[in-house]
């Protein structure tokens, strides 16, 4: 393996990796052919194995084209998933959800730990301007686009103009969301550092919180528009305020406990992170709070209120590497290709419009905030990705508006599929072009890494 940074790779090595990929695919294909129904737990365990191996190998193969590893993971998932080679069926993909729980927890921890106050201070002007403009313009822009396109969207035909406006508002919330996982996934590979990286991390993580608040607000507004008997209720906002406060309190407490553990024990962080990923998620859910936000706060507390931030980030990097592969590969396997084949024109239009509005808004925002050139030129590229968080929001909307759920969910999946594939490529391109990506340095690292496994002991 290249050590995670891409770069030049000897041809022989590339072919060896291709042969290895074909070997593992061939092995599972043969196994599935002669024993079509996996007995017991063989199916799910084998699925994790093939996602991990195929994802790793595919990312290595694609790295010569300077594509992000994420693209390789997602591509591998697509390949082995239910719609191409069918090495993993849909039911098995669904059963992988515990991996997602752990991955999202680690992503949130890492996201919080990346929020360093001294860096935030440096980009506060850019950040606040971009946050206000991106949220407002993308929100209203996408409301307009969706409303204008309603004639081309099958399930929208049955809605009167007012109701259609309500649905468009909900869609706009989906459009405003970004992908912390894709952002951190690309950063984990490139180990990028610099003003663009700081800005992007801060923006994407902070926009998480904005989206949660926006979702609750818009659902309150959209309900009377979509449902004839529905009324506007401010109580949802009050509940949201209570939940946010509770979540921040829990996250702060968790962060302080973690900081103490890191300071006085500091051992076996892998086990501790896995325990937190599953156990704390369950407890926070039970308390009725938002686990991801709590972990985000906890990560930020460890980073900014203790001296353990770097140790914590390093531990997460070590733990999350494997989890990310399975997470994104299973996301690839999750992509419903038939749905994409059916909805691609409208999905592409919506994704394209969102990207265009994001691009224009980024330029405007940089002009207003007088951003340094690197941010002015490339900040938009990190804001295109969408993944699990967006699908989560679509899921919440589906639950709150059952009549809307399946159709809107399908469209969201199709649109996210486009952004999930294109977004990380754009972001990595930006990091490479600005020189913040450490790919070049990694070539030297790779030479050292070739002494290999020893470095891990």
């Amino acid at each position: 393996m290249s050590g995670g940074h891409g770069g030049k790779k000897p041809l022989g090595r590339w072919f060896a990796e291709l042969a290895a990929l074909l070997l593992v695919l061939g092995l599972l294909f043969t196994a599935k052919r002669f024993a079509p129904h996996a007995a017991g737990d063989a199916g799910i365990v084998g699925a994790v194995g093939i996602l991990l191996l195929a994802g790793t190998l595919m990312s290595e193969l694609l790295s010569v084209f300077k594509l992000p590893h994420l693209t390789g993971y997602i591509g591998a998932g697509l390949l082995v998933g239910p719609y191409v080679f069918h090495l993993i069926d849909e039911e098995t993909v669904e059963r992988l959800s515990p991996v997602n729980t752990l991955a999202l927890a680690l992503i949130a921890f890492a996201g919080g730990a990346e929020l360093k106050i001294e860096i935030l201070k440096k980009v506060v002007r850019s950040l606040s301007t971009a946050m206000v403009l991106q949220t407002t313009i993308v929100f209203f822009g996408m409301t307009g686009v969706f409303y204008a396109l309603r004639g081309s969207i099958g399930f929208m035909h049955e809605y009167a103009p007012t109701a259609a406006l309500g649905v468009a508002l909900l869609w706009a919330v989906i459009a405003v969301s970004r992908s912390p996982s894709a952002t951190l996934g690309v950063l984990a590979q490139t180990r990028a550092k610099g003003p663009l990286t700081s800005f992007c991390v801060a923006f994407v993580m902070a926009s998480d919180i904005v989206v949660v608040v926006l979702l609750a607000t818009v659902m309150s507004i959209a309900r009377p528009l979509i449902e004839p008997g529905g009324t506007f209720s401010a109580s949802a906002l009050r509940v949201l305020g209570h939940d946010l406060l509770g979540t921040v309190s829990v996250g702060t407490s968790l962060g302080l406990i973690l900081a103490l553990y890191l300071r006085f024990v500091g051992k076996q962080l892998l086990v501790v992170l896995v325990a937190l990923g599953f156990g704390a998620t369950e407890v926070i859910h039970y308390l009725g709070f938002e686990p991801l936000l709590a972990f985000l706060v906890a990560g930020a507390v460890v980073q900014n209120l203790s001296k353990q931030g770097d140790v914590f980030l390093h531990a997460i990097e070590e733990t999350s590497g494997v989890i990310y592969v399975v997470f994104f590969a299973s996301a690839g396997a999750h992509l419903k290709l038939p749905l994409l084949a059916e909805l691609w024109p409208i999905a592409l239009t919506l994704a394209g419009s969102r990207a265009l509005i994001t691009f224009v808004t980024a330029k405007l925002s940089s002009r207003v905030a007088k951003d340094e050139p690197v941010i002015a030129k490339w900040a938009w590229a990190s804001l295109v990705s969408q993944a699990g968080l967006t699908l989560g929001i679509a899921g919440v909307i589906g639950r709150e508006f059952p009549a809307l759920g399946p159709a809107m969910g399908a469209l969201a999946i199709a649109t996210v599929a486009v952004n999930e594939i294109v977004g990380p490529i754009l972001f990595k391109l930006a990091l490479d072009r600005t020189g913040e990506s450490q790919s070049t340095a990694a070539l030297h690292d790779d030479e050292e890494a070739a002494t290999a496994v020893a470095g891990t002991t």
Partner: protein
Amino acid sequence: MSSIVVLMGLLVLSYIGTLLAGKNAKGTSSGIEFLALGVLVGPHAFALVERATVQQFGPLVQTALAWFGLVVGLDFGRIGGQRVPGRQVVIGVLLSALAGLTVTLAVFGLLQVVKVPYLGASQQALFAGGVGAVLAETSRSAIGWVTARHGAKGTVSDLLAVVASADDLVPIAAVGVLFAYAPHDNVRILLPSSAWVGITALVGVVIAVVTAILLRGAAGYQVWGALAGTVLLTLGCTARFGLSPMFGTFVLGVTLAGLAPNARALRRLVVPTERPVMLPLLLLAGARLDMRSIADAKIVILVLGFAMLVRIVAKYGSGLLLRAAAPTARHTSPHLGFGLLSAGPITITIGLASALRFSGLLGEALLTLAVGAVVVGELFSPLALRRELVAVGEATPPEPAARPSLPPPSTTDAEQELAGTGEHWTTGELPARGDES
């Protein structure tokens, strides 16, 4: 108890396991206390963990078993990372095979005389083979525990460590053969059992090649990713046919030890994970223990008891053979075989793998037998082994009876006093049972 709480418990055990890694003299020689804890929290005692919850952890147990196979395979033929003499490895393998075979033949013979109602004709051979596989091992962890606790050093200690380490091959390969004997019904291809054994090994070899490619230049999490992925894929491929994942990953480990670019570093990385994986596995094995079907067929209890007696005889015979075959063991007493009675992680994993693979009486009987073997081994083996090592002058003799002239010391004083005797006991490493006399 919810599955999340159980998972947290398992993670705590794993955490304890990481702290205990490399400390051979801690706890009991076989880790039986974790097994007992599993029985206590399981459905038979306090029922804190329900049967359905235990079942939910099936994928985790399978993964742990497969990982264990990899660890044993990677370190096979080595002690402390050093390659051991081939002759001693062969002796260890042969002695274990002999013990397993003796038990298998004896049980198979008994089953021809005593009819067990719930075992069909085809299952009798499977059952006898399973019993042989479960009872073949002499636990290397127990030998390590005794030598570490009593500060034993010398050629006999080394020989026993090698023999106990090498004999891991036999039960793991035996379970590979047994699983191949009865592939799943859903398999669309008819092959002889020997071909299925070959396929299990081939899967291990092919995946080892892939792993070696992946490990070239890998560092940090990439190493873990490559290993986890290959172990899981081996497990997925073999279990799909009903073959033994543990045998597959064992072959994977052995092959990888030869192919990997930096096998030594790989071993240093992977071998310490044995304990963190083992402790949760022992707990789950204890919680999974289900003797209802055996209680319905009491004749099985007799057969298992008979098998245990045959094992004692076979291990005693192994001791005699070892004295004859290895010059370094000639100074030991003829009762050396009692010291080889220990059973530990391999026995339990074989029993657990069998219980997962063969539902009903067959699987449950094998797991019960494994637990029984561990209990018997724990009772007899450490004492017998210590006696042998003391007799050949490789271990410190037990302390003489408490000195009456001294006032009864407090616990802390006693520990300090023991430390003052020149024996390298620390506060946390109290003497073994029997030493207190």
